[in-house]
């Protein structure tokens, strides 16, 4: 067997695959952020908390109502989306005429409140969420053992990302959406209810975060703090991909997962920071991000 820089290939492939799994989470989360930013011009700092809500939603369904994982995958994201819609209608809406930065600060505050409440009532040790029987076990790929639960994450997030991309780029609804991003007044003049479109978009973006939360529940412990640090990383992903770029955030999400995986092989301690290094470099060379329009 050959070795690459002293790293046996099975370790390398294993880490790359794991990177891809992490990348799936980055992709779904950053996709949600990108959709929201594209239309609302709001940096949704609450996204991490909403991801956590998704995981708790699945946990509550299972523990309070006995509803299992496969139902949760379909039920929880819309519920989380609706909570997002309420936030948008009641609070975020009031800030559209102001600078972006106020949106950032408002959603930062909302995130503190939501996470604080969940910490108060559920503690922080993390709650167990048993994976459904179908996701137990796994395949031996030769270079590593791939648990079904992780393989499912890649598949599910790819489906969701592609479906979202398709809706936005190839359907009429998506066309309205993109048009509203460019010029809301004009689109409004054509008789389209832009405020409703905005609300639904926010709800959809939040639902994506909830979906990622459901995916995470059986893999990571369900924990109020689970989104707090992730959100900062996902921000970086969105910025690198280009704010508001749909395809950009998907590709960057998966790509950065891979890069992080590589870092874990060569310099494990650096895996927490490599994305920020890349972000700083990208912003300095290409300020609008890899796939973004120039600002």
């Amino acid at each position, binding site marked *: 067997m050959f070795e690459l820089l002293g790293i046996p290939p099975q370790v390398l492939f294993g880490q790359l695959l794991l990177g891809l799994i992490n990348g799936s989470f980055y992709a779904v989360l950053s996709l949600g952020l990108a959709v929201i930013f594209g239309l609302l011009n709001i940096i949704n700092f609450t996204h991490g908390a909403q991801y956590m809500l998704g995981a708790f939603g699945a946990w509550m369904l299972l523990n309070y109502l006995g509803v299992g994982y496969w139902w949760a995958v379909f039920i929880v994201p819309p519920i989380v989306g609706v909570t997002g819609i309420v936030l948008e209608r009641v609070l975020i809406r009031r800030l559209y005429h102001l600078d972006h930065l106020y949106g950032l600060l408002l959603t930062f505050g909302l995130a503190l409140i939501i996470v604080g409440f969940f910490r*108060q009532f559920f*503690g*922080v*040790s*993390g709650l167990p969420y*048993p994976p459904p029987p179908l996701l137990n076990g*796994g395949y031996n790929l030769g270079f590593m053992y791939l648990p079904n639960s992780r393989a499912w994450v890649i598949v599910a997030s790819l489906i969701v990302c592609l479906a979202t991309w398709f809706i936005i780029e190839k359907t009429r609804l998506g066309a309205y959406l993109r048009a509203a991003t460019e010029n809301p007044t004009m689109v409004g003049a054509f008789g389209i209810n832009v405020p409703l479109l905005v609300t639904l978009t926010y709800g959809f973006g939040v639902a994506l975060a909830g979906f990622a939360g459901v995916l995470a529940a059986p893999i*990571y412990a369900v924990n109020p703090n689970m989104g707090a640090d992730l959100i900062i990383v996902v921000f970086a992903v969105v910025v690198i991909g280009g704010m508001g770029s749909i395809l950009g955030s998907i590709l960057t999400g998966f790509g950065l997962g891979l890069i992080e995986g590589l870092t874990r092989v060569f310099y*494990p301690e650096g895996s927490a920071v490599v994305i920020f290094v890349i972000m700083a470099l990208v912003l300095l060379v290409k300020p609008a991000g890899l796939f973004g329009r120039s600002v």
Partner: protein
Amino acid sequence: MKKMGFVLASTASLLMAGAAYATDVKIGVLNDRSGIYADIAGEGSVIAAQMAVEDFKATDKGINVSIVSADHQNKPDVGSNIARQWYDTENVDVIADVPTSSVALAVNEITKEKNKIFLASGPASSDLTGKACSPNTVHWTYDTWALANGTGSAMVAQGGDSWFFVTADYAFGHALERDTTAVVEASGGKVLGAVRHPFPGQDFSSFLLQAQGSGAKVVGLANAGGDTINAVKQASEFGITQGGQALAALLMFINDVHALGLEVAQGLVLTSAFYWDKNDQTREFSARFQERNAGQKPSMIEAGVYASVLHYLKAVEAVGDKDAAKVMAKMKEMPTEDPLFGKGTIRADGRKLHDMYLFRVKKPDQSKAPWDYFETVATIPADKAFRPLAEGGCSLVK
């Protein structure tokens, strides 16, 4: 869940007319009430301290005890700030608990400076009775040396003679890895490698994969709290134990096992100073505790808070005064005895000595009741459980 705020354990019911003297003692329970240790210390430690005061019948003995509590958020700056304020402005005499080594080291310093008493039950760092030792501190429950010694030597004795560490990348993780490495090597095992993960971590898969690739017989988890829970969970997901490697969680509490569930946690070996189901006395205490603490059995930290507060009050009663130096001398002079840890002593460097236990987590079908989680593998006698007095480098030891 968690009760808030100021807790007056036993208000000074000054009905005892004509009492010859009354000593007012204020105990500050300082711990993590919102972070990763909130469920193993937190409000439970406050309840434990209250129970100690009640069981001691302090008021009847002319000691008026009040208890205050605060959240140090696992941050040394927050913790030292509260400790200083308690000592300076609120006349707190004793600080109890303080999980998280970094905060405990800070409180240790301040307690020495202000000449008060620190009953450390929560922290792990063996430096508290080593190079940072203080005449004002008793380190009650456990430390990194004891954990490494218990789990490390037991695993090697069972044939786990090659190790790979998954270590939390901060001082506590490094200390645990260092202490365990020493024990493993002294017992004739060898360490094949280690990987450091960011703290706190969510995803351990890549580190576990490296551990798997190393071919070591034992994967040592030198981390704590949520990190350990996640790592154990993911190790089971990636088939580490099914692949023939043993998992050693170097610091694990019963509440962590509770959170993981036996399906995932079964077979883990861990070192602990206390288990609720050890004898009638511990069962009796734990049942009372559970009732007041939202159904949670006491962790060893909470047990340590109870026992240390009890011993402190006995010393105050014996001295008839709360002067820190006198009480401390009495605490070290008197042998300790309490329902939870049995008989023990406090050494010159502040180390409390008692037996430690090596437990294995039961299989789901062996567990007969909720919280029936551990079976005893070995008892490590008090004189072998802790670092020998001479090796700590404590300046109090002549």
